């Protein structure tokens, strides 16, 4: 167990974590705005991955040249982003909107229902067994160091995730819509009173969260290379854990949480054993929630009357 091995695991963990963070953003944004744990988010990403696989197969991207491949990946990300974003908005409009004044468990249970429906669609789409996603990128090592692997696939993750996150934080911090989002997340009634169109803000949040998930689904396919109709549950769970870990509702928190979960996963797989990873991740989650319930970067909120 050399230092190099440790570094390699950290590298894998951070790349994995970036992907987890991208999914976690979808959870944390929706939670920040309407206080809903969107259980269907993982399965939405599964559907995105199904679309990506269908498009890759339909356009024969696996046999295209290098330029066409990169262009194809970019188009794939846009297409899946649009698809997942729109689907998320439709679900929010049809399923969650009528429940806005219902007790809190109603949208939560509905989200579990939506996740079942998505899973069934995925089952019809790609079948019940796992499907392999074609390797589109060469696996040459980009690092000059012996024993440290960093391939095109890893680079792809960072090239997509980092700009998306920067773009998101710019959007939330500087634009009119971003300000409206922050206002609604603090107090929807007060935001509506000063002229914010709450419905539009909620729709935009679901769209952005879903679109980030759509991008994540393409990267997931290219990076992990196996997709299946049940992948949404496990991945959604890790991403949700990341969101809670960072402080749910907090965008930088989701990123930090994602990276931490990625590191914990790769280090525990390397040093403890792959089969214990799930237990370790959730044990850490429980411990953190017990000692710091607001998460690593979350705000402490007082229960209001």
């Amino acid at each position, binding site marked *: 167990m050399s230092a190099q091995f440790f570094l390699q695991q950290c590298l894998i963990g951070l790349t994995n974590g970036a992907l987890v963070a991208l999914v976690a953003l979808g959870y944390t944004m929706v939670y920040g705005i309407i206080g809903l744990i969107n259980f269907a988010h993982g399965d939405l990403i599964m559907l995105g991955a199904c679309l990506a696989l269908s498009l890759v197969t339909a356009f024969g991207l696996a046999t295209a040249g290098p330029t066409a491949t990169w262009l194809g990946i970019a188009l794939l990300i846009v297409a899946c982003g649009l698809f997942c974003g729109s689907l998320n908005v439709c679900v929010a409009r049809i399923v969650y909107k009528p429940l806005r004044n219902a007790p809190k468990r109603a949208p939560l249970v509905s989200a579990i229902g939506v996740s079942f429906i998505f899973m069934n669609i995925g089952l019809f789409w790609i079948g019940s067994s796992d499907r392999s996603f074609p390797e589109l990128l060469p696996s040459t090592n980009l690092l000059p160091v012996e024993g440290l692997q960093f391939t095109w696939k890893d680079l792809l993750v960072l090239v997509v995730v980092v700009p998306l996150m920067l773009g998101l934080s710019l959007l939330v911090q500087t634009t009119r819509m971003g300000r409206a989002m922050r206002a609604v997340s603090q107090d929807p009634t007060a935001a509506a009173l000063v002229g914010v169109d709450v419905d539009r803000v909620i729709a935009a949040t679901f769209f952005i969260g879903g679109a980030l998930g759509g991008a994540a689904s393409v990267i997931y396919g290219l990076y992990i290379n196996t997709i299946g109709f049940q992948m949404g549950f496990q991945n959604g769970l890790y991403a949700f*854990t990341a969101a809670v870990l960072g402080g749910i509702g907090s965008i930088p928190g989701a990123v930090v949480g994602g990276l931490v979960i990625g590191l914990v996963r790769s280090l525990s797989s390397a040093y403890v054993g792959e089969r214990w990873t799930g237990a370790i991740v959730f044990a850490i989650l429980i411990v953190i929630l017990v000692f710091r319930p607001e998460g690593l970067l979350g705000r402490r909120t007082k229960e209001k009357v």
Partner: protein
Amino acid sequence: MSRVPFFVRERWELVALAVLAVAPLVVPALGGALGGQVTTLFIYCILALGLNVMVGYTGLVHLGIAAFFGIGAYLVAILTVPMYPFQIGFLAATIVSVLATAGIGLALGAPTLRLRGDYLAIVTLGFGEVVKVTLRNLEQITGGMKGLNPVPPPGAGVKIGGLDLGLAFAIDPRWFYYLALLALAGVVVAMRRLEQSRLGRAWVAVREDELAASAMGISATRVKLSAFAMSSAVAGLAGCLYAASLSTTADPNAYDFNRSIMVLCAVILGGLGSIPGTILGVAILVGFDTVLAPWADSWIQQMNINPTGSSLLSFSGWRLAIFGLALVLVMRYRPEGLVPSRRLAAELHEDHA
């Protein structure tokens, strides 16, 4: 409703119990595989009633009830299987495991119950995953994917007037049928009494408004903890019966998130906080899988609608979508469930009252 005789309306449990108690004597099929299926149904009812204490009465979302079901099953197996030195017999093992699951519930609840509702849901979910992974990986103790077996039948080695009780349980599924029915009846009676007790009313008060309840002198933490322990204990009891009736703990995947969610669906579909609702919910879900889906599939096959064997045209292929849609529709149009508890229905339809 007014034409339904009083004793049916108010004492549905007694009527149902009488019918179910006589059924094995009249229906010979209950002596076969059907008896085993109905026994499993009873066990799931007990499990769901345990979950109902937390989700229905106290309003805490619990996504890991299957973990306690599994802990009960494994504990009873460890205390009775031949590979361990304990072999203390089913009854003693059940008592020990129920107390132990209650203790584990307390141990998990004590530090986590001050968390907000959503966080608590996620802690229970995480605990469920931890338990499943642990059961799967601790092969020396839990037998890994094979599970622990054979769990001896209750009363193994006990002879009453020339009748070997263990042998009777092993041969005739009706013995397990009656054991599970007895346990279910006991749990229903206990829940009825609890509902009206000081503690039961405190549970509901905390669900309605924790702040107001504490202002009235109720210790919200203690009340929630007791609900957690009670849920865990009843789920553990269901687990004991499950392991004994299958004579194995089965593999750890029997206690995964899917099981937790299905039980939760049953409680929500039937009616949160309602005993008949919970039982109906379980009956619908189990009935869907064991009666309706096989029947519809064989009907489709007979009518030759699906010659290519496509999953799109098979009924069970739509299982998840049907459950999902049912959950969404129930939450939208009947959030109190199919057989609501009166109090919850009144609360959700305040405008009509």
